[in-house]
């Protein structure tokens, strides 16, 4: 539907007075991919998104879209569109007028803009609500309208600022499937800011993990999850044990651990907690150096040879499951 193009951040920096919110980050977003900016609150992911959108001035560096430096262009001239966290629908306008707002600003005449707005509403399956006001819609419906409003300008990149955080858990999972479907259908890039690693894993082709104003690790979702480069990424993505050994820190997938009788594994540990999770059993053991290791065992394997609290067991893992970490 539009010319797909790459987006590149070149040592992009945002300073607020003395504090640095985004510290010279560089990243290449491939065209037509779903990328997630992932990180804890205050890590600079939202500022990055807002700089790409043009709602925050760039202190240093640049945003390059399709080979064009857009760092100092107004938002609407960049070829990006933003979907806001609380959707920011105009409460005094109907759904159709909300969607057609940017066309009206551009001076498109009424029949034409209504026609295009209706097309967009059809895309997000909201045609029957065209005449309603935003406050007569549910959260999920409002989000669809916000999507339609952002997409009507035919952006090359759609920016989503924590789009699912206002929804209840059930709806969140449905809407994220919807987002993914739309991205595939439209073939444009989506850049999605979130602090939920499960959301990022479910959606993203590429994940960019941010912490303390910098990018910790960026790459395909599977690579970021299964081969974390730093202790922060390993902990934030979850599912890993970060273990300090004499030869350095390593990350261990907790589902790649197995247990053995005492002295039968690479490490000995004292079982400190057993948590039954249905398909799995999470077993936490205290090992030397006051470190905790969680092993995620299948319920079958666990109940074949149950262990008890306080029991000393051996912990085992294969070499492929361990990743050395750089601090």
């Amino acid at each position: 539907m539009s010319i797909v193009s790459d987006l590149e951040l070149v040592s992009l920096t945002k300073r607020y007075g003395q504090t640095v919110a985004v510290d010279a980050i560089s990243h290449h977003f491939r065209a037509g991919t779903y990328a997630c900016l992932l990180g804890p609150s205050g890590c600079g992911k939202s500022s990055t998104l807002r700089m790409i959108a043009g709602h925050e001035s760039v202190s240093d560096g640049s945003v390059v879209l399709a080979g064009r430096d857009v760092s100092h262009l107004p938002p609407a001239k960049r070829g990006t569109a933003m979907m806001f966290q609380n959707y920011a629908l105009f409460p005094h306008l109907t759904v159709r007028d909300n969607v057609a707002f940017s066309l009206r600003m551009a001076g498109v005449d009424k029949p034409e803009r209504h026609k295009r707005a209706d097309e967009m509403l059809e895309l997000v399956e909201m045609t029957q609500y065209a005449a309603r006001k935003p406050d007569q819609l549910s959260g999920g419906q409002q989000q669809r309208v916000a999507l339609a409003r952002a997409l009507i300008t035919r952006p090359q990149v759609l920016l989503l600022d924590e789009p699912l955080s206002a929804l209840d858990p059930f709806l969140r999972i449905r809407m994220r499937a919807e987002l993914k479907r739309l991205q595939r259908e439209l073939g444009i890039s989506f850049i999605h800011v979130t602090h939920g690693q499960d959301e990022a894993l479910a959606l993203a082709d590429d994940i960019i993990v941010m912490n303390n104003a910098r990018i910790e690790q960026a790459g395909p979702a599977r690579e970021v999850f299964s081969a974390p480069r730093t202790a922060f990424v390993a902990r934030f993505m979850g599912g890993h044990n970060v273990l300090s050994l004499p030869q350095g820190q390593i990350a261990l997938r907790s589902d790649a651990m197995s247990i053995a009788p005492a002295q039968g594994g690479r490490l000995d540990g004292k079982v400190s907690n057993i948590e039954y999770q249905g398909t799995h059993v999470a077993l936490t053991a205290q090992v030397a150096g006051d470190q905790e290791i969680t092993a995620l065992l299948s319920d079958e394997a666990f109940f074949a040879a149950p262990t008890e609290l306080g029991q000393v067991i051996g912990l085992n893992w294969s070499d492929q499951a361990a990743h050395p970490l750089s601090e």
Partner: protein
Amino acid sequence: MPPRPPLSIFTKMKRQAVLQNRNVLGWLQASPLAVVLLGFLVAPIVMIVIVSFWGATEYSIYPAFQFDNYEFLFGSSVTYTVFFNTFKYALITWAMTLVLGFTVAYFLAFEVRSLKWQIGLFLVCTIPFWTSNIIRMISWIPFLGRNGLANSTLISWGVIDEPLEWLLFSDFSVILAFVHLYTLFMVVPIFNSMMRIDRSLLEAARDCGASGFQTLRNVIIPLCKPGIMIGTIFVTTLVMGDFITVRFMSGSQRANVGRLISNDISLLQYPSASATAVVLLCTVLIVIALLLRLVDIRKEL
């Protein structure tokens, strides 16, 4: 734990009694306000309506039910001129307070970034209210008078040769005083509306390519409508009911309906004053009803 016994008939009856009691309680809670309104709003108006049908001679008034006062009121051309004047004052004052009030509110709400400054500047706006209306009005007189500050400054600058006569005791001075007195009544509700506008809406508008003016026109003004409407009701009712400002600032040379009533009262012509008051009240109510048809403010309160 023993199972809970089913609700007995007795419990059910008790619950019903509580429900009825709650009704009674509600009425009791509403009654103080109802009594106040009845005593201080409804009763006086009823009294005015009754007296407006009474008769009067030069030296006495007598109870009656006649339409003489209304006939005289609607038969006199003075009434129409005075009503026209009242509307004129209301309209011009409304337009000016709206422009000023909207601008001030916009500045406070969108240009001033920190809440501390917003509150501080807002309090500055209320400083004139530390003195009485009359004193604020009268303080204009030495400023605007024939040999007042305004005229002498303009003459010393060489802008004018003769003192401007229309500065004081004219429609100009009346409207100036009205604007001075009532702009804040426009600022407050509009400011309130503006503070309730989600800032991300302005960003969303910008994201959709709206210029600053387009955002103002298509987002801010529509969302301020309730505030504008409340301010409008304040200003129009205050101006239409006023008599003292017109008297002071026009040097008794201009008239509005309020002055008509006050003159009648000073001549002890209560029935005639009542009739005028009833007509004025109805006019103001009609104006407000028309305004409320334009914007539904109940939703916003």
